[in-house]
């Protein structure tokens, strides 16, 4: 069994936090744009942002999965204790693909096809033709995946905090950027 390093490599740390920002941003923008918080113009812009962020997250996830397959990472928590953590981590990959895949289908099958302009740069093609029935199902799947993702984020954070404050191990600090890492270690050490 490979033991995890004392710190994840900088690339792993950076990718983790970019991915975290993307997922939390997607959940926040997704909620705001579907709950009539703003007017029509801002809501339209939020949809475009949500779609652009979603495709960014898809690209990043594909990259991370490829990296994982090429060189399997050591478990963050070894043994049976780490099972819930590994389940949550695997679920993140699977759910990200399901959520974004469903989102792409929502955009494609919408009875009102609005071109996806990736940060205003170029149009991302649709993967299906407009289809009201399929639109309804994929929209439901997308929403469920988003709520499941929000639950996973909560579990992931709770797990990390449990390791930090209850187990008092370095599971959390290993993934923190160096400046935050030093701060967290000082806070915990007597």
């Amino acid at each position: 069994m490979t033991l995890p390093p004392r710190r994840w490599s900088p690339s792993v740390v950076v990718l983790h936090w970019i991915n975290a920002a993307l997922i939390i941003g997607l959940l926040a923008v997704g909620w705001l744009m579907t709950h009539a918080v703003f007017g029509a113009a801002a809501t339209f812009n939020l949809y475009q942002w949500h779609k652009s962020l979603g495709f960014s997250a898809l690209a990043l996830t594909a990259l991370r999965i490829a990296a994982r397959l090429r060189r399997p990472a050591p478990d963050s928590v070894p043994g049976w204790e780490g099972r819930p953590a590994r389940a949550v981590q695997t679920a993140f990959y699977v759910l990200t693909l399901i959520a974004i895949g469903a989102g792409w289908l929502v955009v494609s099958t919408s009875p009102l096809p609005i071109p996806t302009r990736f940060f205003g740069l170029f149009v991302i093609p649709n993967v299906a033709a407009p289809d009201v029935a399929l639109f309804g199902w994929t929209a439901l799947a997308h929403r469920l995946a988003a709520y499941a993702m929000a639950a996973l984020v909560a579990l992931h954070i709770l797990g990390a905090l449990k390791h930090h404050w209850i187990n008092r191990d370095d599971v959390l600090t290993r993934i923190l950027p160096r400046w935050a890492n030093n701060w967290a270690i000082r806070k915990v050490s007597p």
Partner: protein
Amino acid sequence: MIPLKHSLLITVAAAAASFPFASGPAPAAGAANWRIDPARTEIAFAIDAVGFPRTQGRFDAFEGRIAIDFDRPEKSSVAFHVRAGSVDVGSTSFGDYLRSPAFLDANRHPSIDFVSTSVEKLSDRAVRVSGELTLLGVTKPLTVEVAVERPPGGKERFEFRAQTRIDRLEFGMNSGFPLVSRDVDLTIRSEAAEL
């Protein structure tokens, strides 16, 4: 934004001033000619959609002329020409989408026109204007009641206000129906000054 809007207003004012009778029926001999004041004119629309806030917007570029015959109101006439591409909803990407073939198809149909066919006086402060609205190249009859008011002030000015609702499907604008409502509310507020 300000210089663009300014230049638009100048363009519209110039267009309105140079070609006050560009189209539409010629005014009767007794009719006085009025030019709409672009700075005090608003051509606005609103449309509802399921799961999306009510979209409200306006058109920034238009020209229009009004001929009023006080002795024989039925001889009066009005014509408005609105540039479809000037749609403004407060978001460039949203505006671009509305200009696309999905909705206004502004490249193929650059102008939205209303030309009156008859005017009927209802009271001192209201007239009924019947005419034809051309949108996406489709012409349909449209009748609107127009409230007419004379704002306080020395100059000869008239204020017009009209509200109506059109069925966009009648003009072949089918995108997004039924998620996007077929009804489009139009509000026109204008002030005209005698030429």
